[in-house]
């Protein structure tokens, strides 16, 4: 009898992940938490380099994943620097030179103010459900919270990161950790998210730590001081003329 049972298990294996919910549905809820029509965010970027630690403060106005305008507020050296993203183009205004330059080619691959984020990382579209097929491959407890481990594989060829692994809080549907992989399977970047706060009907991480694993250093922290979702964003901000104002 026991032999027949084992044989039946071998012949008709029950998929282990059948006990997990649909990955796509989980990812959809993650997107709902993290994305909004518009966002106005005031934040600090704490850059840990080999020699020192710098804090850069900024305010950003974002509309979907296509348009964004950022103004740097501190330190004095960066104050007044502005960045404008429209679709897949990025411009930067530097008050010291009073010039607007388009960030392109090589420069897109360079880090933003010495951080672990490159300009092209900042350009990436973030609505994941449309880009990735998701499968839950397990569970894990992080900081006392039970998470689904989501394995994401790009549905299209033109996605920046071919695959990702994401640890999603089972209750709040926010990622607590994320790993980004190259097509070859090499780990490229890690993100750790914490200090989750409930804002209206969503949970949002107020602290993120980005780490380019190919680079030495302690990574870059991103601290959200304040965030507003779905508020009106002035249209005039999304023009090159706004950079000089």
């Amino acid at each position, binding site marked *: 009898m026991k032999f027949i049972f084992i044989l039946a298990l071998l012949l008709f294996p029950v998929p282990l992940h059948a006990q997990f919910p649909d990955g796509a549905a989980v990812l959809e809820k993650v997107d709902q938490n993290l994305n909004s029509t518009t966002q106005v965010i005031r934040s600090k970027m704490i850059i840990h380099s080999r020699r020192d630690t710098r804090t850069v403060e900024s305010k950003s106005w974002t509309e979907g994943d296509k348009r964004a305008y950022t103004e740097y507020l501190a330190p004095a050296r960066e104050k007044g620097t502005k960045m404008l993203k429209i679709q897949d183009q990025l411009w930067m205004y530097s008050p010291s030179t009073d010039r607007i330059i388009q960030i392109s*080619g090589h420069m897109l691959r360079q880090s933003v103010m010495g951080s672990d984020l490159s300009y092209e990382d900042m350009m990436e579209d973030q609505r994941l459900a449309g880009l990735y097929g998701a499968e839950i491959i397990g569970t894990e407890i992080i900081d006392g919270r039970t998470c689904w481990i989501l394995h994401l594989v790009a549905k299209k060829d033109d996605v920046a990161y071919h695959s990702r692994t994401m640890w999603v809080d089972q209750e709040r549907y926010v990622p607590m950790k994320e790993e980004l992989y190259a097509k070859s399977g090499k780990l490229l970047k890690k993100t750790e998210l914490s200090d989750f706060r409930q804002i209206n009907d969503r949970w949002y991480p107020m602290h993120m730590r980005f780490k380019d694993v190919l680079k030495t250093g302690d990574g870059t922290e991103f601290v959200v001081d304040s965030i507003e979702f779905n508020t009106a964003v002035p249209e005039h901000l999304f023009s090159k003329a706004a950079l000089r104002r």
Partner: protein
Amino acid sequence: MITLRLAYRNLMGAGLRTWLNTIVLSMAYVIIIWQKGLLDGWNYQARHDMTNWEIGGGQYWQEDYDPYDLFTLEKSHAQIPEALTGMNPQRPVAPILIGQATIYPQGRMQSCILRGIDPEQTVLHLPSAALQQDIAEIPVVLGTRMAESTNLNVGDTATIRWRDANGTFDAADARVVRIMKTNVPTVDQGQIWVPLARLQQMMQLPGEATIIVVGQDTNETGPQEGFVFRDRKYLTKDFEDMMQVEKLSGYIMYVILLSLALLAIFDTQILAIFRRRKEIGTLIALGMTRGAVIRLFTMEGAMHGILAAFVAAIYGIPLLTMQARWGIPMPDITDNYGLAISDRIFPIYSAGLITGTTCVIMVVVTIVSFIPARTISHLNPTDAIKGKLS
């Protein structure tokens, strides 16, 4: 003939004054020839190196490719035309695929350009054969400048991250298999050479290239679909423009140098005419025409040029020959100028350069000698004998 003999005797009679003028003028000769020779030598070496290492007999550029606009790099690739594929000994070509990437040597992040080249190519002097290695990592060849900036040596590995044709990130480890020494920084600074087939696979662009370098002796440069032919003149235009600027700044120096020497001759002439007014008056009174006296003084001045040419030859020939043989060492810093400059520049002193420079200086010296001598034409012989200058 009398004028010539008289002029020579007067010149020698002036003694130290003549020799001072002659030495200053001879320096102008030597420095002008040396600097022009240096520029000509640099020009020749740079063109020779650029042809061997970079441009070959010309290049086919994918029609969107613009080396000064990195925006174009992502779409600058096309199938290598059938006529240019294969290793036809009659028409050797070297297709090169170019892509952007980031290298992480010792955990540092550095932008770079990946250049895929056929390891079996014979068109360029690049040591591409070294790329023919069966190793798990990507075999790469670096120039000395790139190796220095990344702090990589032969056998070292570093991770390279790039985006494929669709924009997806990919990364793999690369191993340095060779470090090449080249005088052409454009194939070295920020460049990483990898096997063409490997890069085509990495970028998902099978059979494609950005530029195709043709052999130096290839005359046939018929149109190829999707590619535009750029000849050597076009490809060396930037260098040519830079040489023009260098030549122009050289001319400014020549003018300053010559002015110093000519000023001395001019002064000498003025002084000679003033001091020898009695002699001038006597010569005219004895029946010498004013024109003949002007010729005499002009000849004296012009003889400074001839004498200076001899003096310059005495010390200039050994000095310049030595430099042409041993070359002039260039400081290390010139490596960072982005120009094709070798460690040593061997000046080239052509017959045309020496003859031309000598002729120009002689003509200018003659003109400068003539200008003060013109005053003699207004001279009254009686006043001149009395020691007056009208």
